[in-house]
């Protein structure tokens, strides 16, 4: 029996990440893991449900668990919908996690008739069900970038979801995962530096060191000058409102 376990090697906080990061406080979401992850990368997590913070914070995390409809009704009751929409319209750095990604969409099969934030086009769909294919998806799945991204890299991420966005919206960079015969969205991002919007279907705060690295890159905000130019990838993000009206309709048919 090992009676004296080795002391842990902590994740080294990054001085460049030592800044305030606001987390949208909703009644149903469990925020301790998100706050702990932010602390571990060197940031100062602050919980808030103040619309002014949510509109103006340099860095904002939009977490979320539970159902699409319940989360939207909670954001509405707390008067936060327009603040979130406005900050995203100017691309202020925001990290949406799990349901926090899905809420960006126009609607979800989970809650028919409920409007989402609508900053990206498309409909969130239920994951394909088949023998041997568990829903909810609970566990580690491999994510693969389909674009050259600022924050997103390939690697294993922890998922806990029954729904997902079927396709990366036009004007966004992203990564996908494989579920049965489909390749839904693992994460999307747009912009860079202090205008870096990232939304992940997985939980970066629960995805080990790989996930902490992602959060750290988002908090620091990579200056675009470091980035190489890649063909077929927009270095200047299109305004989100423009996208919402012009993006091609997501058919819900999974690519693959």
């Amino acid at each position, binding site marked *: 029996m090992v009676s004296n*376990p080795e002391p842990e090697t902590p*994740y080294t906080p990054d001085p460049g990440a030592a800044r305030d990061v606001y987390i949208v406080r909703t009644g149903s979401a469990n925020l301790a893991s998100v706050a702990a992850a932010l602390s571990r990368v060197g940031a100062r997590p602050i919980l808030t449900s103040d619309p002014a913070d949510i509109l103006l914070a340099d860095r904002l995390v939009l977490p979320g668990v539970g159902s699409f409809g319940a989360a939207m009704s909670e954001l509405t009751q707390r008067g936060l919908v327009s603040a979130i929409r406005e900050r995203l319209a100017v691309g202020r750095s925001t990290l949406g996690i799990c349901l926090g990604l899905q809420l960006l969409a126009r609607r979800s099969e989970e809650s028919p008739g409920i409007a989402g934030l609508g900053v990206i086009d498309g409909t969130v769909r239920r994951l394909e069900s088949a023998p041997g294919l568990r829903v909810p998806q609970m566990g580690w799945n491999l994510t693969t970038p389909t674009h050259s991204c600022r924050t997103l890299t390939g690697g294993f991420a922890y998922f806990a979801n029954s729904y997902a966005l079927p396709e990366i919206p036009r004007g966004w960079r992203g990564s996908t995962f494989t579920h049965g015969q489909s390749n839904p969205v693992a994460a999307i991002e747009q912009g860079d530096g202090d205008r870096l919007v990232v939304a992940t279907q997985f939980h970066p705060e*629960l995805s080990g060191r790989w996930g902490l690295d992602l959060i750290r890159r988002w908090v620091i905000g990579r200056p675009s000058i470091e980035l190489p130019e890649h063909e077929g990838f927009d270095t200047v993000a299109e305004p989100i409102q423009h996208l919402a009206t012009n993006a091609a309709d997501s058919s819900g048919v999974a690519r693959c």
Partner: protein
Amino acid sequence: MLTTRVIPCLDVRDGRIVKGVRFQGLRDAGDPASRAAMYEQTGADEIVMLDVSATNEARATAARTVRAIRRVLSIPLTVGGGIASIEDAARLLDAGADKVSVNSAAVRDPSLITRLAERFGRQCAVLAIDAARTEARTAEAPTYTVLTRSGTRTEPLDALEWAVEGQSRGAGEILLTSFDRDGTGDGYDLDLLALIASAVEIPVIASGGARHAQHLADAVRAGADAVLAASIFHDGITTPDAIKRELADLGLRVRREEPSNDAAEEYVA
């Protein structure tokens, strides 16, 4: 495609890890937070902490332990043991648990599962089932009955029916422990796993009886989505990473340590 999760389990009493055989004869096996951090670094995919304290007073320490674990852990943490209400669950979730597992209290009042799922989301509500093989075996296939209160009480409840009901009431996952195999190292009860895993759509975590990687691989082949073990990790017999290397050699998909982009592409190929 999801990988098979390897989950070390911390049975915690009064802030210390303990481990027994068939839920009895508990002995000290270390500090929960240090252990959890060490298991993350050595390849664990998730941690389960079960509070096996005997009294409510002792349970108040569970939230402190959860908080200490959360500070050093960046993989999922499921906490169970004595959760009988939404308030109990909320306290542990606030302290840093990502999921809560309910057992005896859900048998007493199955609506607890539904209330947890509605309040915190289905992914948060784990139904823990302790199952024992029934003595009477009239048919060729074994049947199982549900035990509660740390295996001390036999319920007039069939394990298969309870698993199906738990799913329909909102459970997002089933943590299935074989009472007969717990702590024995004789391998998981594969009949039990196959029975439950084929009857539900939600993920099933195999628990009770693991000693070798082959046991874990057998459990996955029987239908488990994740494999939980305690003694083999606490006793230093092996590490999650060593187990996962063996599972990969046996043909299972596992999350390898810190994959880089290159490693990820290699994995896909």
